[in-house]
């Protein structure tokens, strides 16, 4: 959610129950402004909160002019001091795939797990048990990245692409209409398109290249991993992800208010197919 409309956004996203306490809210309002100034970001998003055993991580993201460029992620333990996180790499994702369980809340905590690795020594090849240590910071980075790639969403029309390349915020976006708001196809993943190239030309013929340049939620696997609900009658549409429980996206149709927030334990719900 945009740091500028934090209060309203928190109010709209409160249907999921987890929000922020007043002191955190107050400190966020001030500290995010300072972050924006210091790092010279175009927009600062409050990404959410990852609940740890000992402490919680508060995560913010900064965007530059080009909305689809890789975002910089910052974290804080107390909503006032923010530290930049390194960008996520493939290696990190592989490393952290083995780590299970909750986040501790201490960024320097190390998870240990033993792995069987093939070690070549001369002519002999044998397996050794290697204890691999993964820092919690790395795990944090890769989880945030995974969540972003999987479930960060944006309504259709909120961003548009210019022929020169950069993606901009669409200032004439007036919100989705009610009928559009109930369809999964009006929401896009907030990341570079992956599926788009695989579409047939027939499907692409109806798309508007300036607006439809991201993947829509329709073809997400597993099907049914999104729950769409209208709250307050038809005045608010809330999407909750069932794959990463804790991610809430809200949008008030016909207005410009939209945003998403993640408040959860940072674990993927791998039991989803059983639960549907």
């Amino acid at each position: 959610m945009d740091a500028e409309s934090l209060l309203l956004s928190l109010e709209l996203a409160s249907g999921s129950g987890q929000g922020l306490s007043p002191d955190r809210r107050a400190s966020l309002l001030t500290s995010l402004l300072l972050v924006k100034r210091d790092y010279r970001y175009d927009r600062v998003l409050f990404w959410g909160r990852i609940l740890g055993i000992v402490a919680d991580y508060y995560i913010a993201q900064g965007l530059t002019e080009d909305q689809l460029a890789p975002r910089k992620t910052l974290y804080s333990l107390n909503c006032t001091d923010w530290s930049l996180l390194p960008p996520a790499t493939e290696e990190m994702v592989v490393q952290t795939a083995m780590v299970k369980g909750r986040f501790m809340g201490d960024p320097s905590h190390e998870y240990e797990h033993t792995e069987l690795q093939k070690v070549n020594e001369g002519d002999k090849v044998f397996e050794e048990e290697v204890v691999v240590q993964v820092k919690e910071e790395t795990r944090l980075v890769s989880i945030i990245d995974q969540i972003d790639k999987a479930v960060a969403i944006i309504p259709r029309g909120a961003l548009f692409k210019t022929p020169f390349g950069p993606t901009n915020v669409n200032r004439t976006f007036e919100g989705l209409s009610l009928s559009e708001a109930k369809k999964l196809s009006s929401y896009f993943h907030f990341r570079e398109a992956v599926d788009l190239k695989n579409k047939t030309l027939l499907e692409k013929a109806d798309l508007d290249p300036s607006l439809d340049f991201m993947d829509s939620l329709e073809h997400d696997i597993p099907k049914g991993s999104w729950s769409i609900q209208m709250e307050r009658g038809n005045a608010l549409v809330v999407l909750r992800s069932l794959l990463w429980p804790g991610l809430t996206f809200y949008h008030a149709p016909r207005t410009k208010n939209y945003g998403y927030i993640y408040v959860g334990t940072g674990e993927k719900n791998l039991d989803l197919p059983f639960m549907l």
Partner: protein
Amino acid sequence: MEDSTSPKQEKENQGLREVEGPWEEKTAASPQDPDPQSSEPLEAEQVPETGPQPRNSPPWSPQSRASTFLGDVTGQEASPPNSPPQQTSSTPPLTLAEQDLGAPLQSGRTTTRIPDAGTPLSGSLEQSSDKRESTFHLTRQSEENTFPEPQQPKPDLYGLRDPSYDTSKQKELRFDIFQEEDSNSNCDLLQSEPGASEVTPSMLEVAIHNAKAYLLRTSSKSGLNLYDHLSNVLTKILDERPDNAVDIIENISQDVKMAHFSKKLDTLQNENELLPMYEIAEMQKALFLQGNLEGADQELEEEIAEGSLPNVMEAAFYFEQAGVGLGTDETYRIFLALKQLADTHPIQRCRFWGKILGIERNYIVAEVEFREGEDEEEVEEEDVAEERDNGAIEADEDEEDEFPKAFYKAPRAIPKEESRMGANKYVYFVCNEPGRPWVKLPSVMPAQIVMARKIKKFFTGRLDAPIISYPPFPGNESNYLRAQIARISAGTHVSPLGFYQFGEEEGEEEEEVEGGRDSFEENPDFEGIQVMDLVESLSNWVHHVQHILPQGRCNWFNPVQKNEEEEEEEDEEKEEKGEDPDYIEQEVGPPLLTPISEDLEIQNMPAWTTRLSSNLIPQYAIAVLRSNLWPGAYAFSNGKKFENFYIGWGHKYSVDNYTPPVPPPVYQEYPSGPEITEMDDPSVEEEHAFRAAQEASVSAAEENEETEEDEDEDDD
């Protein structure tokens, strides 16, 4: 030319005077009132001849595209015209302007000649004020009857055109604009005819008309024409005044086009879309209406007011400090809904238990305790099941002994706990949204709890949805919901140590099958615990809901014991089968009011996380407990008060992934003996061998007989 110029001059004068109006408070304007009327008859003649006059505009209009036009306007507003000289010098500038058509076009837009500057300035000012008005005029170009209307909405902005002026100048000014716009798009036309214009203004006019006609041509596809579209776009821009309009001009143009089409559908679609919103608003409005306060009801009210309704807002305030909550408005609505529930049912106590999220809809859960003797009787389904069991067994016995008798006897269903005991201590009501009617959830059966432990399913939000799972869940979503609520309550409802105490000690020790003490009451002498203590040590919190045994009940029920006491037929069965164990171990769970420090850890992680609500102001902070076993369960305490709350999906946390249980092995139904054991059919070789052996034995027997006969014969 003279004739034509003079009326044009007049017009121009009028224009100038018009322009002066805003800046000079109509000092000059007043004597000119009669003029408009006189010019009216002239207007008709001059309609086709307004070509040359607006030549004032082209000098800067070709260079002023839509975006810079505004800059133009502002620039020129800043330099108010030298109005007095304009009146006198109107004639020469006019002709000069005509002659200088070509030059200004190629030079910059800033005024090149001072006399020219006078008229171009005035003309542009005219235009500028015009332009803003044109936002209204242009949209009504086709209708030439609406002269007075457009002017009125913006008199304050430009201070001041009198409608009388405008009516007369309308056409003329509009044509000014027309020409200006035309010239925008046709500057090359104009540029190519600088010389020609002085000589043949009619050709220029013709060109302009052609250009205008081209712009007005309707598109065969969409029914729009460029003229209208451009004027709409500029209207929108001037109305909304976005920043950097030039960057988003394409989007605005697109939006205008879309708006043009979507309007027609609005009347149909809007109705349906807004209905649910109005419905729920109506329902919620009913919440806000005060109940009837008649005399007879007042006593009831007093009774109820004693303690049945909790202070939900206060609890919500504390939970908000912890970062948990539904938002103030929503919580207030839930509060009112609870009040409505308390008013309509005879309730001793009720509590806002929490919110369970579902796929299509969510559940708001209220925990309710009915008054003594007031709760409704439930249908005894369990007895029916028993009878069915017995019937089946009898049927088996009646059937002949031909069929091998099945060993299998369905395990006796464990009876559910009575109301107000154990897992059914409270009754739960749910609704989807505050304002909707409350629905009572059925009591929970032990079998349902046992099964609920084995499956993991999302709630859909509809109480009658079937639960399709393996192992099959006995019931639909309302039963599953009730079972999960029971599990969550048993696992996460905690209170500070000492808040509750056991009732008066009774003589006997109640360590029987009925389990430990299951009743508690508030401790009137509770003095509160320091918040810091509550945060630091988990032993200061205790469970105040009974733990649910693996059997599915809180108080253990011995199925074997009952067998012996009742159902003599079953005794016979038991003797026959002899496989039931005689003694099933009693299941024991932690007794009531055990501290939560005794809770099992999950993979080296404590079952609860404690936090202080605020590190910055610790003296007023409250202690917040968060369950790691049931994510979404919270409890807070400020030392004296406490409250539990749940918000989440309704599932337990497990580090490993859920694996559905494996189907049990095929049960051996009947004793296996030689008469029913299967044997393989003999293969061909075996059959041959058998036959050969048989034949051999037969032939051997025959031979023996023959030899015997032979021998007999021989003997004789």
